[in-house]
């Protein structure tokens, strides 16, 4: 058996590796350490864990040299919307190197972001499936945004540009709606996001009656690091939150789990403000519409009543005419009765007169004359006795057919 120096041994390991693995290969691993250096390189630690996630099955150092890192980092961020970080699953193109002093390591040549995107999507899916199983996934969406969502609790970092945008958008709304905004500050980037956001949510929940909605916004950071919102704990808090939650933490491409369980998700803080303004606009429109309806209803009702009175008024003359005709007939009847009454009376009187006439007919002088008597007058007076006459008196004898003058001798 030969004896080697350490250098000889390491040299042999190196040449064996070079001989056996001359070409780079793609390797799937989880980042367990990430140290960008001042020189522009980046040292990583890669691991593979067992399904429980507690035991390491494999471990390796990986170096990303400056020229590769300068290209790889922005490319990865542009593709995923995330920066590389511990806990992330990556697919790297690596060549295997062995250095006599530094030992085994991998040299990273390229990265495939689609693998990471796929892995994040899988994690999101798993969280969503769990929330679904637990029956909480739709709870927040079932809440109703009040008609007047003007008391707004905001979880954001106080210094974030997005928070300023949100406030400006609300206070400068063209309709003049009044909003009341209270900030519950939280860290929106880094390792502490989850704990910090949940603490802020608890603070809002403790004062739930003071608010109409909760808005969670971020924005203004260079890289979004959204995966902290792909958190089961944040999601379950949002789902169970007593107020409707609006998220404006968004991402152009994918929704985070927080977005999915929120009542409403929009892409940016400005859009979150826009959503609330629109909601107020709807409310104001309902009120304006009601005001119009009220005016129409009252004038409509008054018009109906006016027409009713008018109809009655129009009927009056014809009703009067009917009454008038009836009265005229009554009057005519009375007149007719009066006339016939008078006529009957006259007839009766005439009849009586006729009878009386018959009674006195025997005394008519004409009839007496016709019987051969004459009437003698002297000086216009009837002569009733011969002794009334003297000699020389001129008398007139009246016959039925004329008179004769005579002189007394």
């Amino acid at each position, binding site marked *: 058996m030969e004896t080697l120096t350490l250098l000889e041994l390491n040299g042999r390991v190196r040449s064996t590796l070079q001989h056996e693995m001359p070409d780079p290969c793609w390797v799937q691993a989880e980042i367990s350490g990430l140290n960008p250096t001042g020189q522009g390189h980046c040292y990583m630690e890669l691991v593979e864990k067992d399904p429980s996630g507690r035991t390491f099955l494999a471990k390796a150092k990986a170096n990303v040299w400056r020229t590769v890192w300068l290209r790889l980092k922005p490319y990865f961020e542009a593709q995923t919307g995330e920066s590389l970080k511990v806990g992330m699953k990556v697919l790297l193109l690596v060549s295997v190197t062995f250095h006599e002093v530094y030992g085994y390591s991998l040299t990273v040549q390229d990265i495939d972001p689609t693998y990471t995107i796929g892995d994040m999507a899988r994690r999101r899916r798993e969280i969503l499936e769990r929330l679904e199983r637990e029956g909480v996934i739709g709870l927040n969406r079932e809440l109703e945004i*009040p*008609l007047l969502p003007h008391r707004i609790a905001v979880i954001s970092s106080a210094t974030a540009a997005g928070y300023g945008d949100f406030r400006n958008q609300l206070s400068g709304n063209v309709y003049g709606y*009044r909003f009341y905004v209270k900030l519950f500050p939280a860290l929106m980037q880094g390792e502490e996001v989850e704990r910090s956001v949940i603490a802020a949510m608890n603070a809002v929940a403790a004062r739930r009656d003071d608010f109409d909605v909760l808005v969670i916004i971020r924005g203004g950071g260079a890289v979004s690091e959204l995966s902290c919102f792909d958190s089961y704990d944040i999601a379950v808090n949002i789902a169970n939150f007593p107020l409707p939650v609006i998220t404006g933490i968004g991402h152009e491409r994918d929704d985070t789990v927080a977005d999915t369980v929120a009542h409403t998700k929009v892409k940016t803080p400005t859009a979150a403000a826009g959503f609330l303004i629109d909601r107020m606009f709807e409310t*104001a429109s309902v*009120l304006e519409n*009601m005001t119009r309806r*009220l005016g129409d209803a*009252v004038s409509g*009702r008054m018009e109906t009543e006016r027409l009713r009175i008018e109809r009655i008024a129009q009927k009056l003359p014809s009703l009067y005419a009917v009454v008038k005709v009836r009265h005229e007939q009554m009057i005519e009847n009375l007149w007719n009765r009066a006339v016939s009454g008078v006529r009957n009376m006259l007839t009766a009187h005439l009849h009586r007169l006729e009878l009386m006439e018959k009674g006195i007919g025997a005394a008519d002088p004409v009839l007496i004359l016709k019987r051969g008597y004459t009437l003698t007058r002297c000086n216009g007076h009837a002569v009733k006795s011969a002794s009334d006459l003297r000699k020389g008196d001129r008398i007139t004898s009246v016959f039925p057919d004329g008179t004769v003058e005579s002189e007394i001798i």
Partner: protein
Amino acid sequence: MKYEEALKRLEEIVSGIEENKLDIDRIGESLKEARELIKSCRDKLYKTDEEIKKILETED
């Protein structure tokens, strides 16, 4: 009165007038109530409520 309740009451009055359910002698009264409700709703939309401001300004 809460905004929602005010709006609900307003709807009652308006539809009552529209559907001739309200006595004509009481329309004036209802109209007055409706106008007050509208004003209070408008105030909530457009005017600063100092009370809400004060509540929200208090720290936890």
